[in-house]
């Protein structure tokens, strides 16, 4: 296997994503965590682009960075929970959580390097968006409706929970 320019790009993107992910969980200041989180979302969008899923990369940027990250920043501002100063950042199970995380990664890496994946050497479909649209209204029409109802109910419920009484 020769080492190409694409490998270098992948390693840079993967390293950036994992670094930003680590920044999210180790920053004491919650606002810094949110900024790292935006970086991690952007890295994941770049990974989608490397996987030739351009539509998902755009959706990732619009929904995660555009909506969810903004929502999180608002929640941090509204709850004044920046954790600046001497407040304890982690709970009592931080040590064992780190051990569990490292063990889980070791287990997953061990398994997925052992398995012989049935990889198909084939190009992606030229125009995936019409295919996705058709699948949403034929094969996946019930899940699509359910998710639409779920999203409406969740958003109305969120407004009801958070409003001033």
């Amino acid at each position, binding site marked *: 296997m020769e080492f190409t320019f694409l490998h270098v790009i992948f390693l840079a993107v993967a390293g950036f994503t994992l670094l930003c992910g680590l920044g999210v*969980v180790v920053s004491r200041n919650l606002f810094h965590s949110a900024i790292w989180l935006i970086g991690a979302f952007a890295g994941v969008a770049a990974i989608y682009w490397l996987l030739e899923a351009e539509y*998902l990369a755009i959706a990732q940027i619009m929904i995660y960075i555009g909506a969810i990250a903004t929502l999180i920043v608002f929640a941090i501002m509204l709850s004044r929970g920046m954790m600046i100063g001497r407040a304890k950042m982690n709970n009592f199970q931080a040590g064992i959580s780190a051990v*569990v995380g490292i063990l889980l990664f070791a287990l997953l890496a061990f398994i997925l390097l052992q398995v012989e994946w049935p990889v198909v050497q084939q190009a992606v*479909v030229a125009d995936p968006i019409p295919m996705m649209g058709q699948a949403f209204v034929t094969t996946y029409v019930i899940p699509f409706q359910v998710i639409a109802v779920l999203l409406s109910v*969740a958003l109305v419920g969120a407004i009801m929970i958070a409003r001033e009484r």
Partner: protein
Amino acid sequence: MPIIPLSWFLLVGAGLFSIGLYGALARRNAVAVLMGVELLLNAVNINLVAFNRYIVPAQVTGQIFAIFVLAIAAAEAAVGLALIIAIYRTRDTVNLDEIDLLKG
């Protein structure tokens, strides 16, 4: 044709999942826990799209599931953050170990 091995993408997904799991289990602040959960969902999405690209490249099944996960993540973030704001109003804290009203 795919040049990068599939296992590299899966390793990134596994790494991001482990980091997110640590964040969701270890942080005291509820918003930080939600950020950890977002990392978990993103890690799962990387795996779905990678399997779609490498194992069934002629279909879009994995991408459709990734879009479902995206919609669930949006609903989860909205409800979670609304709960955090409501709890902050009544109890003046968002630290999860101080929110113990239901603890016997």
